[in-house]
């Protein structure tokens, strides 16, 4: 039997359902990891040594343990402590926590790159510390870190394929089912490989466009 992609045609709607789930999970995890990343980045650049130490440990631990181990920790562990949630929310939570570690690093770099003069000006103007963070530091830091955030998002999309191991039928999970039904695994997974490459290509293109749009007035300063 040769290479024949046409057998995939009638399974396309099913695969698109998987793609939809992948999209939903990734958007949820992206939102979660950005919120978590902002909080952790604030802690890592805070004046308090305790907050700095704790947040550094969080980033270190979640960057150095494989995602699948973290995922199993939550998937098998949460019911143990009486939290019964389905695979999809578990996956979004695990992806957000793992992604938060990377996001916080990106946002921290953005915060550290801000000129001290801007912060001094804000302090002299009599703004409260909270106002300085939310209205001065954060907008500048987020604006400069859009491109690296795009790289984190691409990684989120790729990592979301691991969720198929906890019975979540996202794109990879549904491809597994199609491969088992048609018994043409090579065609299915080759098509899936291309599909993921296109998806990540689109995601990084989107973030590139966002970066150009947000930084359109400062084109000279922010390369």
């Amino acid at each position, binding site marked *: 039997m040769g290479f024949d992609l046409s057998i995939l045609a009638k399974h396309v709607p099913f695969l698109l359902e998987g793609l939809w789930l992948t999209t939903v999970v990734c958007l949820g995890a992206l939102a979660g990891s950005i919120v978590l990343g902002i909080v952790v980045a604030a802690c890592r650049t805070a004046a308090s040594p305790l907050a700095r130490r704790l947040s550094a440990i969080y980033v270190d631990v979640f960057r150095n343990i494989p995602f699948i181990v973290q995922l199993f920790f939550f998937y098998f562990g949460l019911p143990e402590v009486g939290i019964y949630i389905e695979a999809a929310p578990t996956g979004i939570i695990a992806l957000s926590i793992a992604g938060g570690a990377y996001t916080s690093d990106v946002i921290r770099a953005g915060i550290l790159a801000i000129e001290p003069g801007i912060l001094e000006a804000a302090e002299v103007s009599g703004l409260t510390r909270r106002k300085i963070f939310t209205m001065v530091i954060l907008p500048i830091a987020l604006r400069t870190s859009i491109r690296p955030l795009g790289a984190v998002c691409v990684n989120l999309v790729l990592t979301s394929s691991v969720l198929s191991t906890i019975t979540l039928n996202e794109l990879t999970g549904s491809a597994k089912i199609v491969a088992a039904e048609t018994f043409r695994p090579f065609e299915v997974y080759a098509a899936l*490989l291309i599909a993921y490459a296109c998806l990540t290509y689109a995601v990084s293109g989107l973030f590139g466009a966002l970066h150009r749009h947000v930084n359109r007035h400062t084109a000279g300063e922010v390369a």
Partner: protein
Amino acid sequence: MRYTEFTPYDIVLLLQGLSVTLWLFVASTLIGGALGLGFAVVRYYRVLLLRQLVHGLAELLKNSPVLVQLFLVFFGLPVLMKINLTPSQAALITLSGNTAAFVYVIAVSAIEAISRDQIEAARVFGLTRWTILRRVIAPQALAFAIGPLTGLLVNQLQVTSLISVIGVIDLTKVGHILNLRTLKPFIVWAVVGALYYLTAKAVAYAGSRLERRLRAHTDWKGV
């Protein structure tokens, strides 16, 4: 009869899993590193057609989930080419290919980081192309690349955890087996996570030691 308690033998089991993980990590790093370097040299010498092929392949491998690549090799290749692959063989092929793609990118940027003047100077001295590559480019490129390479290796160590999905009895799979037997997810996954964490830290430490040695010649030695 069911053994739901932990036994001393479980430690042996965990260490066995760790040794399988380490073995595949080292083997795929060596093979992938050699392949990636070969790709980079192909690009450096601008070999026609092969260069575009290598670049496209690297992009595809970088932008698709390792899990899908594993499925393609383990389930797809045997059906298409009518061969038999054991899970370990499939894992070795996939991980090596994936490592090669990332090593290629790092090696290319490391070679490009060396200024043209040095190569021109070496040519003026009448060194052959091979001597230039070995004596001028390689030592400097290695010193430049060792940082990113360490980061890559720490990442690839975590990627090896995915091979448990196709049935290789690595550290993650051992964790899965222990988890199903004892039903104590928090202890099992915390121990597995800790083992991965320590291994990753060891790799990072070795990388930073090596980096310091390779960069020793640039240190200020005093007048």
